[in-house]
């Protein structure tokens, strides 16, 4: 069992930047790199760390250059609720995120494709036609300002005085 305070701080550090050197995390949290490595393995095995990825400028990746948010209304099923349809939707590689939502619709999917047409075709031919899907509304993303806590345009930094009391 990891110390809860240590676990919280370690997860926070990794969530901010998963590529930190083990030594950096160890120094910050007053422990050794070995202990940090063991803790990370433990968290991965417990599925508390599900995976790692980089936040990228998608325009450099042609196959994922277009992104859309799809609002999906579905008919919940006796016993299965929303889960069966959600699992089915989530298996499509084009669906990069999927959330069950409160409010005016049920599922929110993030869908990626190479062109507007690719995304539109995927939604109309695959998502909308699944039995139980009542309606979809597609919103194409035009510009990304911030994602996962990171700004895509850095704030201007002001020069501080080099020496102050």
């Amino acid at each position, binding site marked *: 069992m990891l110390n809860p305070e240590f676990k919280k*701080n370690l997860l*926070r550090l990794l969530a901010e930047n998963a590529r930190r050197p083990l030594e*950096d995390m160890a*120094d*910050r*949290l*007053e422990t050794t790199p070995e202990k940090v490595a063991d803790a990370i393995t433990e968290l991965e095995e417990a599925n508390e760390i599900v995976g790692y990825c980089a936040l990228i400028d998608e325009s450099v990746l042609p196959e994922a250059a277009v992104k859309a948010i799809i609002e999906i209304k579905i008919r919940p099923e006796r016993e299965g609720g929303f889960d069966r349809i959600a699992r089915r939707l989530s298996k499509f590689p084009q669906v990069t995120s999927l959330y069950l939502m409160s409010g005016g619709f049920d599922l929110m999917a993030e869908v990626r494709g190479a062109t507007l047409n690719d995304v539109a075709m995927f939604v109309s031919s695959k998502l909308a036609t699944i039995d139980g899907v009542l309606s979809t509304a597609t919103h194409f993303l035009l510009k990304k300002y911030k994602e996962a806590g990171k700004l895509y345009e850095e*704030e201007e*930094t*002001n020069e*501080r*005085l*080099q*020496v*102050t*009391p």
Partner: protein
Amino acid sequence: MSDCKSPRNFVSEHIDILPKSGIRKFFDIVSTMKDVISLSVGEPDFVTPWTIRESALFSLEKGRTSYTSNLGTLSLRKAVCDYLAQDYGVEYDPKSECLITVGVSEALDLVIRAITAPGDEIIFHEPCYVSYVPEIRMAHGVPVSVNTYEKNAFALDPDDLEKAITPKTKAILLNFPCNPTGAVLTYEQTRRIAEIACKYDLLVIADDIYSELTYGERTPCIATFPGMRERTVLLHGFSKAFAMTGFRIGYACGPRKVIDAMMKIHQYTMLCASVTAQDAAEEALKNGRPVMASMRQEYLERRNVIVKGFNEIGLPCLNPNGAFYVFPNITSTGMSSQDFAVELLKRKSVAVVPGDAFGECGSGYIRCSYATSMEGIREALKRIGDFVKEIKAEQK
């Protein structure tokens, strides 16, 4: 024009003999150099949290650009008093016991001028913030320093304090967590200092500007000890905890009579603090605390890194529980603090502040601020390590 005399020295003697800040001297050297990594900065490297900046903008948008009450807006004073009651366990009346000032610097000036008659002694601990001695001198008071030592983790020893008291002593000025040492007081030390203040009927001026930046358990505010609320003036502000140095906003809370006297000086010299800054400060207290907590966590992690780094280099460094400074001991290099800082700057372009800029007993130490990025800290440590190796090799 033959009657025109050559101008005499118009500057009054007590100001003329006042030395310039040791930090300032150092700044003049640093400012001529390029690509310096600075560990000499006494302000957060974070920009003010957005929710606070956004409130300042909104305040301007609404056209709030006039004077406020001399004491400050009542809503900010209420927010301050609620905050102190909740976080520090000491209650003040926002209408008569709280004064909003232009930073803690102004609050300190006001309280010292309000209480000091010529010849009154004010005790403070060294090494300390650079403005204490000049502030007391400018008010025609007599600064009486009590040294603090590395062996006591730079905390003020109550016995040493008691020895410095004379019939002319008026007040004790405390600054824990301390700039430049990062030292904090224990519960027991605070309790004994409170007892001494009561025994000798002294006022305590508590410069608590760094108190949110305490790592681990925070020592209770001295005003909460028996008999202390009526003899403590609490000085606090937004600069450090909320990264608002440029807003210049602080406050003083204390017994009505002293606050009233401070208000008179403030009224005639400053009128009021900037209304934009006051509105921003109110937002800081209402919604800025989560961001403050995350900044504190980042400082704590940097402290862990810098303390380990200095000890590995062979410059013994305590693990201070407050502020964002470490005060490593450099005597093993055989150099004076001034020489160490100047040579380090010349050879490795790393700026640190010589410890004796904060009082004679700071010699043999340097002040390093960890209010700079982790990359900067790591690079500075590497360069300081190389520098110490070079120095030791040259001495052989």
